[in-house]
């Protein structure tokens, strides 16, 4: 068999490398990507003993299981009652659903003047092409302000539960941040390098177009939060802290919520007192339109992105 290329020449070609990768004799990622084999799980005997001791103490001293008949019988009953309760509730609700008006039928009570005005005059009155956004941010703006505060107070509670002091955070940082994953994952970093800018831009697009197309502050904010989480996973919290640390988080979150509150209060109080509202509605379909919806969408977006990232960071390492 004649050859046009010598072995030495052939080994430099792309085809040789490709077929070698295909047959599995050589992995191009070996020695370039960090790969640590998973360590065998070895239980820490001291700690196990301590945990066992603690559980025993709790059982004996707090609940006094040997003498506490109420708890003993309670344990037995608990599972049975829980299952019976859930099944009964599910059956009750299913039974009720069969009596509710048919979905989509014309004479449902929900097809009334409320929905009619939202759909028919929504665009005219709020300036938003997207009726849903117009409804939640203009007609029922107070509910949505409350809903945003639910997110805010949820982060406060997670902070109470999981936030560590700064000295503790620094000393345990390496342990908490990367326990099982490789430190610099080339694949993840490569993907994040490409994806992060796209995700951020898409998030901003969704937020800014909330009044025109499906989307808005809540969905756009969660997209941006996902982008932040991806960045932090790929490039570590140290790099994320260069542009998003606790201070930035606080300033962004408080500014967004205060702005939302101020715009909202202006809207509620002028509306209630019959004072003319000086926020122009603009032309439906344009980016700068729909009165208070766009600024509120931006505020909600910032708040939601901050909340998403804060949840991730707090659960991951106990600090922002």
């Amino acid at each position: 068999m004649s050859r046009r290329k010598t072995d030495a020449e052939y080994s430099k070609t792309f085809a040789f490398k490709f077929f070698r990768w295909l047959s599995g004799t050589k992995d191009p990622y070996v020695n370039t990507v960090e790969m640590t084999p998973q360590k065998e799980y070895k239980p820490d005997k001291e700690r196990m003993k301590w945990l066992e001791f603690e559980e025993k103490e709790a059982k004996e001293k707090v609940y006094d299981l040997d003498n506490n008949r109420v708890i003993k019988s309670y344990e037995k009953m608990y599972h049975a009652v829980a299952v019976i309760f859930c099944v009964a509730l599910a059956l009750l609700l299913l039974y009720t659903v069969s009596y509710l008006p048919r979905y989509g039928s014309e004479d449902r009570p929900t097809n009334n003047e409320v929905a009619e005005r939202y759909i028919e005059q929504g665009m005219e009155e709020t300036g938003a092409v997207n009726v849903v956004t117009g409804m939640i941010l203009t007609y029922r703006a107070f509910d949505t302000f409350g809903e945003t505060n639910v997110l805010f107070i949820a982060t406060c509670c997670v902070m109470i539960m999981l936030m560590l002091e700064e000295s503790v955070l620094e000393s345990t940082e390496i342990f908490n941040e990367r326990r099982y994953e490789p430190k610099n994952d080339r694949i993840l970093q490569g993907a994040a390098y490409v994806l992060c800018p796209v995700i951020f831009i898409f998030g901003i697009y969704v937020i800014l177009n909330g009044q025109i197309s499906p989307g808005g502050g809540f969905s756009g904010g969660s997209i941006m939060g996902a982008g932040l989480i991806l960045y932090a996973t790929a490039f570590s919290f140290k790099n994320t802290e260069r542009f998003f640390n606790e201070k930035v988080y606080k300033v962004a979150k408080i500014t967004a919520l205060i702005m939302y509150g101020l715009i909202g209060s202006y809207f509620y109080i002028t509306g209630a007192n019959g004072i003319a509202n000086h926020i122009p509605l603009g032309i439906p379909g344009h980016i700068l339109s729909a009165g208070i919806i766009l600024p509120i969408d931006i505020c909600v977006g910032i708040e939601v992105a901050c909340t998403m990232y804060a949840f991730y960071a707090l659960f991951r390492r106990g600090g922002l």
Partner: protein
Amino acid sequence: MDVIRNFPAVSILMCIFAGIISSGLKGKAARKVNAVLMCIVTVLNLATLMYTIELKTYFVYVMGMFPAPWGNELRVSVMEASMALFFCIVMMLSVAGGIKKLGDEVADDKLHLYYVLMDLLLSSLLALCYTNDLFTAYVFIEINTIAACGLIMIRQNGRTIEAAVRYMVMSLLGSGMILLGICITYDITGHLLMSNIKEGMVRALEGGEYAIPVLVTITLLSVGLAIKSALFPFHAWLPDAYGYSTVSSAAVLSSLVSKGYIFLLFKIIYRVIGFDIYCDSRIIDVLFIFGLMGMIFGSTSAIRENDIRRMIAYSSVAQIGYIYMGIGMGTEFGMTAGIFHIFTHGATKSLLFIAAIGLTDVSGGSRKFIEITGAGYRHKWAGIGFTVGALSMVGIPLFAGFISKLLFAEASLSLGYKALPALIVLGISTILNAIYFMKTVIRIYTPVENSGYETVGFKNGRLYTVVIIAFIVLNVVLGVASDRIVDLIHMGLAVFA
């Protein structure tokens, strides 16, 4: 339009703003913001109450440019304004009473979050009072639930974490039921605005095809709110949550958070379902029986308890039972007595919690009965406060508790077959109350020879004394000026529906 009509909305928004700003402040600054906020909101609500008394009817405040079935609205009358004012006053006193103790119980770097939770809790309570929209109520129930969880677990030890988890599970079950109830209500009436739902309910029942969904809605809403306000069989979360959290949290949770839900139930009975439709459903008898059971079993649990804070917590179960008994009577008088008991219990239970912390502090921080012997001599004001609270709960004339027991007894006389059980259980419960409260009062005034207990915390704090005196005055005012308050409640209920 009068400027005062803006006050309810402004007070809700101010609480939210204060919460948001406090999250960026240090603990002490957040405390100042909270103190200023409480004062302003109390004044605003007082003005609103004065205005509504003069107005004699309700007024509607549109939140935004769009009127009610499309937008959100608040509806303010005497009932809402007086409840909101009461919430503000009790919260102000409870926070002030536990302020010195807070430093020991909450980590410094989380102190500001405590005030964030308090501010938002107040905003949610006010919103629950004033809103006329069922879904707005649900949103603020969520805020209320999360804030209450945070208030329980901010004192970080194993007990409070367990209590918070238990509270969260039970409370979320309640929230879920309320949400499902609201969904079914919306499906059969097509409205979320309370007054419009009521019309829709009448229409839905006229056709006859929606009888079962209406019944299920009533059940889900009532049971959901009963779980959240710790009615007897659903009270498992209560003793730990009230017994181990910080003193202000315990006072606020027992006297305000559960009352906010009960007030919402009153609103649902009168304004959403309609009083007659609600009374025709059998669920009202269930609430009546659970209320009666709570009155007895809560008290017997309290008698068995060896820990003063947990004893007061179990006593709450009994008192919540009284309120539900009032609802279960299904008459105007029963409802009046129930609402009066909300005031009584709110003013008394927070006094008892605040006084109990003074007693335990002069007994080396121990809460066991044997240790607090003679504590009334070591901390005079706490002793007096506890005695007044106990007398009021037992139902001694001159204090608020006597009037609510009297009102319950009067209300039960006009009932048919429910009269006898109500009166008997009321009597038994009063005796049981007397057993465990008088036992404690005698215990704290039993002289001991060696009072070698070290004092922890805040003996003779001036603010603490002022708070105890204010609570005592509040109790006496509720007890002495009861005619006026009962008139106010009647007047409120007339325009409440």
